[in-house]
């Protein structure tokens, strides 16, 4: 177990294994997202209440899932980095944050746009949207904190601590916002909770969710590889690797 963790922690090993894994996730992401999109946009039946505006669900829900999952992944990476001092975990956490913020923004934007035909307004202090907005601020905080330190080692630790504090707070925030919302808007219509969606409606949704997750993994692997090269540029193995590539090019 211990040896495995440290092997996983070696940037060189990770660089090699991620090169093998990466294509599979890209293919899975492309297949799932393209099929899910076509199905969701063109073939799934329109909602009896909301009509075709319901098709926004196929981007809103996967983005919202990912927004929350990425924050958890970031906090777990931070924990792994702090406890076992595995630098790859921190590199992954660093590249996850902007994607998480982007996904939170997508969830917010699609939610707001969806609100126009549904509620007749661009913004509604709906529990789900409000939680998303707070999550966006949490992401921005982590990114800003990481950027504020001159020493990268300190930045990594500080961002890890903040991500862990944030992840403990996310369920509390969600719970309290839900509570607040039901208090002020009793029994109102929420965007995505609906009884018994027919199969041809939820199956593309599942595909989109899985596709978004594959995309997240693929992109994180790719950007972590870049981050490894950037941080380990002075290490022997990186220089040998680059030398080999230069030789091949001749």
């Amino acid at each position, binding site marked *: 177990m211990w040896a495995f963790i440290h092997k996983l922690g070696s940037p060189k090993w990770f660089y090699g294994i991620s090169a093998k894994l990466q294509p599979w996730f890209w293919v899975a992401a492309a297949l799932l997202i393209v099929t899910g999109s076509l199905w969701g946009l063109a073939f799934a039946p329109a909602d009896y209440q909301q009509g075709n505006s319901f098709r926004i669900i196929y981007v809103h829900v996967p983005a919202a899932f990912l927004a929350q999952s990425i924050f958890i992944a970031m906090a777990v990476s931070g924990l792994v980095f702090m406890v076992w001092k595995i630098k790859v975990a921190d590199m992954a956490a660093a590249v996850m944050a902007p994607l998480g913020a982007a996904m939170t923004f997508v969830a917010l934007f699609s939610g707001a746009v969806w609100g126009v035909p549904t509620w007749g307004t661009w913004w509604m202090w709906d529990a789900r949207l409000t939680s998303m907005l707070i999550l966006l601020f949490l992401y921005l905080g982590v990114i800003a904190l990481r950027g504020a330190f001159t*020493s*990268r*080692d300190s930045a990594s630790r500080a961002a890890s601590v903040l991500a862990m504090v944030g992840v403990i707070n996310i369920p509390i925030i969600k719970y309290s916002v839900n509570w607040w919302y039901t208090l002020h808007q009793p029994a109102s219509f929420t965007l995505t909770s609906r009884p018994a969606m027919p199969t041809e409606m939820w199956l593309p949704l599942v595909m989109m969710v899985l596709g978004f997750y594959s995309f997240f993994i693929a992109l994180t692997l790719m950007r972590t590889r870049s981050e490894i090269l950037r*941080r*380990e540029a*002075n290490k022997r193995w990186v220089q040998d690797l680059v030398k080999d590539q230069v030789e091949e090019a001749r």
Partner: protein
Amino acid sequence: MSLCLQARQLACERDDRWLFQGLDLDIRSGEIVRIEGPNGSGKTSLLKILSGQLSDYQGELFWNGAAMKDVREHFLANLLYLGHAPGIKTGLSPLENLAWYQALSGTSSNDKDSEEQCLDALESVGLAGFEEVPAGQLSAGQQRRVALARLKLTPRALWVLDEPFTAIDRHGVAALEKQLVDHAKAGGCVLVTTHHALTASPLLRHIALG
């Protein structure tokens, strides 16, 4: 009962730059160890590692033969560290400043004895008569002396001093140097960085970085 702080294959990397690597150290009772090196060679980082403040290092630290992480409390109870900044609150009087340090070392700040000890310590660094003056009204050198009064106030075996001679006048420097030698002679141990030339002594040892 002698003390001994050991480091094995100590290495410190800050932002992909090795400050030092493969450092082996044995620091024992009766020694004054001076860490030397140019600016930015990691003197302060080494002192921070050896005083248990910085955990971001590779290698092993041993305190009296036991791994540092197992005996951290015992180590800290025998350590006195003075950093670049004197750690003196300008809003408090020298007496109040020392009382807080005394309480951190586990002695009550209320009883009469401990106040007496604080007064003695301040007198020994030439600050008699300044006990109740807000430290903000003292000069930089006087504030440094308040910090140095802790050397007498809380007897600790291991002193780790980062540039202790800063802002001290010539008379004070001589007294401090004598204090370091006396401490080593009494079986204590001093770890010091300084730009000031220390008088040669059989107890003095140099470690060069960078």
